């Protein structure tokens, strides 16, 4: 009796050690990842402190003094800065429109590709429309400037540089986004459509449904969960609004409508090296709002009976 108790005690005592021993190789494999995430993701999170300081790189994070207004001086400044509100408005407009436009474009593209009946056409078309995804925005911007830029083909015939036109710039932004990404984003929906049971379509045939009715009543409901999941996932990126794209396409005359948070941070603080505190404050604002957005959309989706992500 006594002996057994002691053995049990030992086992309890050694349980932790045994667990470590059992999983030591897996732990070994995960150590690089832990180091990586701590260094490149969590240390910058500590760097959020910069947003509350009059930061000077030479003094370091812990040497710099706190900003006025109980440390909220940087936020006070940006919220009283008209340029910030312009930039924020641009970001929301561009982010939301791009999200919706590319969402709809991808689904339409998938429906169209799915309806093409000749296999050869389908494959060729898909190959062509997917290709631009693999080019960087640097190159796409070059191609756009050839057509709408200062020396572009269209510019010569209508005598306006559309990439430098405040009213038209956003159209170029959305258009180039569709041009580059619609084909690629449609693949995910096409994969879902391939998984729809053909029996559903056969049953619809017998009921005398037309092709449009089949799309509306079978295909669209089938891709709905995927679509909602993707919509939620992209919600977090609204305030990012595509730095690469905007940065490569915009020019000084359109800053007023095209400048987004990321380009604003880059232009005003990174490039000049001035006011890192302000830049960090804008960055923190962006991170927090994005995070809240993701959580909110996830909750809403769950309330509506869809599968969330968190």
């Amino acid at each position: 009796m006594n002996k057994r108790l002691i053995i049990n005690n030992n086992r309890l005592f050694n349980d932790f050690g045994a667990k470590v021993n059992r999983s030591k190789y897996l732990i070994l494999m995960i150590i690089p990842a832990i180091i990586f995430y701590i260094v490149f993701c969590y240390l910058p999170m500590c760097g959020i402190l910069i947003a509350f300081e009059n930061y000077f790189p030479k003094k370091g994070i812990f040497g710099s003094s706190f900003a006025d207004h109980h440390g909220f001086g940087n936020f006070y400044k940006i919220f009283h800065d008209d340029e910030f509100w312009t930039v924020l408005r641009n970001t929301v407009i561009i982010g939301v429109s791009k999200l919706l436009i590319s969402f709809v474009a991808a689904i339409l593209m998938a429906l169209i590709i799915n309806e093409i009946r000749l296999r050869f056409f389908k494959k060729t078309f898909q190959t062509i429309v997917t290709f631009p995804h693999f080019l960087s925005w640097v190159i796409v911007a070059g191609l756009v400037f050839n057509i709408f830029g200062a020396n572009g083909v269209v510019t010569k015939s209508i005598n306006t540089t559309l990439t430098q036109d405040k009213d038209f710039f956003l159209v170029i932004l959305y258009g180039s986004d569709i041009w580059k990404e619609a084909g690629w984003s449609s693949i995910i929906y096409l994969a879902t459509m391939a998984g729809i049971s053909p029996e559903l379509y056969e049953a619809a045939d017998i009921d005398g449904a037309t092709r449009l009715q089949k799309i509306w009543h079978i295909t669209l409901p089938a891709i709905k969960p995927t679509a909602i999941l993707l919509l939620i996932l992209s919600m977090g990126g609204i305030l990012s609004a595509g730095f690469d794209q905007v940065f490569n396409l915009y020019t000084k005359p359109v800053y007023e409508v095209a400048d987004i948070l990321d380009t604003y941070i880059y232009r005003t603080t990174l490039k000049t090296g001035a006011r890192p505190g302000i830049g960090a404050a804008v960055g923190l604002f962006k991170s927090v709002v994005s995070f809240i957005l993701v959580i909110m959309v996830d909750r809403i989706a769950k309330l509506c009976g869809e599968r969330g992500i968190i």
Partner: protein
Amino acid sequence: MRKFKDIKYLPLRPKGSTFDKRVTMMDWFLFAFMLVYGLIIIYPFYNAFLISISPNNVFNEFLLYPKHVTWHNYNIVFHKATLWGGLRVTLVLLFVGTAYQLFFTVITGYALSRNKWLGKNFVMNMILVTMFFGGGLIPYMQLISKLGLYDNFLVMIIPGAIDTYNMLLMRNYFASLPPDLEESAKIDGANDVQIFFKVYLPMSLPMLATIGLFFAVGNWNSWYNAMLFIKKEEYYPLQYVLQQLIQETASNVDGMAQKDAVSEGFKMASVFFTIVPMMCFYPFLQRFFVKGLVVGAIKG
């Protein structure tokens, strides 16, 4: 009245059904759309190509075919040291960077795909948080300086070690493989590292190729890190060299005053210098890309 030959097909192929071979309005619409949209995709490339083979003063007209053909611009491109230097940097990134990213992403994905081990949930949550929250650019910039990576070649490689999205993709893939393999290997006395390298890795080569290709494309197209952190011109990757060429005249307000120091033709020839390798490999690699996306979609 239906004709006899129609009746023969009628029961099996009702109008509008999958087996109805008749060409309808919708097919014509689809065909027209394919044609128009296909041309919209292709025209910018064709236009760029025309510009690159035109003499420098006739580039801005709408042309269906080139009036004068000159290979002068390509001649300059092939003798331009900055482009070749950029290509060299990009190739290093392409091979070293891709191998590096693949290694760390895959072992992390594997470790997270295994059943219970101590601290797995903690690590998993720690990683997921980073997908939705980050410190922002300025703290990251300060970190890079503190680590001594500023203006260092390694800054274009090291911070990319693990791509969370692709890592989760890999994890889902490993988790979908039968667990019996692991158990039988365990009984034979293999440890987790051996099981990974000898059992699971050989089984997942297609998936590895897919993710490797994503990384390779990312590295081929990378310019952002270089723009932020690299000041030495000999470390500029190809895309960044190109970015500077293109941006140089983009902000030019009245296009007429542009000097021909960097001509449009030369720029477009450089663009083709970067697109052509992609165009050559793309048709062969397409199915890998599609596969990777699909696996991520359905399991994710």
